[in-house]
């Protein structure tokens, strides 16, 4: 058996974190390929069901990352996202999906270096947690 390569789904907002990822790329920084970016217009559009679906189909971690508070392109989408993540962090552990598999960060458009660092850290932490139970036991 090889080393554990987690699947991490990251919902990143178009205006900040996706731009930071772009900047990391053009700056030739590397970050773990386990992280699959999904660009959304705003973290405020990430319905809880997107996160639930990712976990049920076997994701080991889910990240939502958007603009810093006060910087949202749509004024307040990130505040709404924070409430939804809070909600999911209350619900999912009840069914055995650990709290720390679901993460929320704010990464601004100019934080290319920070983006690469945070992704590496997230990947390390999920590897340490081991595979999610939905990996073996999918709930389709």
């Amino acid at each position: 058996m090889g080393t554990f390569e987690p699947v991490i789904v990251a919902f990143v907002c178009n205006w900040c974190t996706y731009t930071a990822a772009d900047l990391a790329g053009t700056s030739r920084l590397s970050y773990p390929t386990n992280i699959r970016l999904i660009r959304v217009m705003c973290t405020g559009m990430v319905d809880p069901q997107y996160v639930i679906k990712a976990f049920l189909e076997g994701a080991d971690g889910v990240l939502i990352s958007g603009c810093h508070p006060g910087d949202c392109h749509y004024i307040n989408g990130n505040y709404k996202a924070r409430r939804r993540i809070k909600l999911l962090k209350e619900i999912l552990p009840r069914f055995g999906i650990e709290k720390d598999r679901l993460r929320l960060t704010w990464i601004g458009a100019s934080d290319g270096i920070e983006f690469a660092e945070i992704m590496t850290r997230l990947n390390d932490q999920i590897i340490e947690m081991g595979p999610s139970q939905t990996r073996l036991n999918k709930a389709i």
Partner: protein
Amino acid sequence: MMIKIEQEDNSLTKGLHQFFKRLLEMQEIDALFLPVRLKDSSSIMPSLVTDPAQIENAVPLSPAFPLNSGRMVSRLSYKESGRKTAVLLRSCEIRAFIELIKLKQGSRQELILIGIDCPKALTLSDYTAYMEKDPLEDDAYIQKVFSEKNETLNGFNFSSACNTCENPFPVNTDMNILLHGVDLSNGMMVESGSEAGQKILESLNMQQTSMPEKREEVVTQIKEVNSKANEAMIEDITEKTDSISKLNAFFDRCINCYNCRNMCPVCYCKECVFNTDVFYHQPVQYHQWAEKNGLVKLPTDTVFYHLTRLAHISHACVGCGQCSNACPSDINVFEVFKSVAQTTQVAFEYSPGIDENDPPPLSVFNEREFEDIVGIK
């Protein structure tokens, strides 16, 4: 203000009929919405009554709870009708309705909300069986259920939602009919809860009375018993569903009929995402799932559906138990919802259906809150 409703012919139900009749005969009230035994059948269904003569078929105290009427009252009130309606509801129905008001799917403007100390309800399947096997008269039922306080009725099960209900006493109404802690042989009491309610009670010119001393003690006692049952129920259901494999097993009989959603009074979307093309998968998708795992059970998206509903509305769950009643596969949906609702409602310090000015937690935010969940260190 508090008035007394005397028994009529030694009957509480008939006493209530008199009270409702007087309400309906008032100029200010055009219609009454309450459970009625339908003509030529034994079914008790919530009905909108305009003819005072029809009131004698009303059954305000019964174990029948075919649906949460909060949703029906929303239909009666989401637009102006030009008529004033007094509605008689159980506590969980009132709370559901208040949640719908917050979502602009109902209004109190043309309503007089009448709450009643909850007469409890049998599960829908047990209620049907109970009705077939010589059921108690309406009055005998209420006497029995209030004096014995059992978890079953002649061997038929009360809904676990009722046995674990922490709020069987309506709040935030225009008036409440009180039965617990009241000497029923001497009649019932009606307490006003708003200015409008008080005005109506005053104009009825009925005998005034005061809160019976025993009331508070009895209310606390019932809440304590139910709260204890609730804790035990939550502990039990949490143990039964605390991993994904257990959750899969719990919902494995789910046939995606969506009855639980349709009967949920607070599942408020006009069009549900689960009815859209998103879940009308391509045939190849099923094959891919099967190939990946060796097999895929159909219908798919069952656990996904329940988890999504938990995320969408558990904060507003009023614990009426109609989701379990609606399930043709006999899955105890309610217990999972109640256990999660407890957690999410505490997390957002939210009590659904109590105060209509308390906004649903996912419709608002504060700039500085929940900062501990942000960041990867």
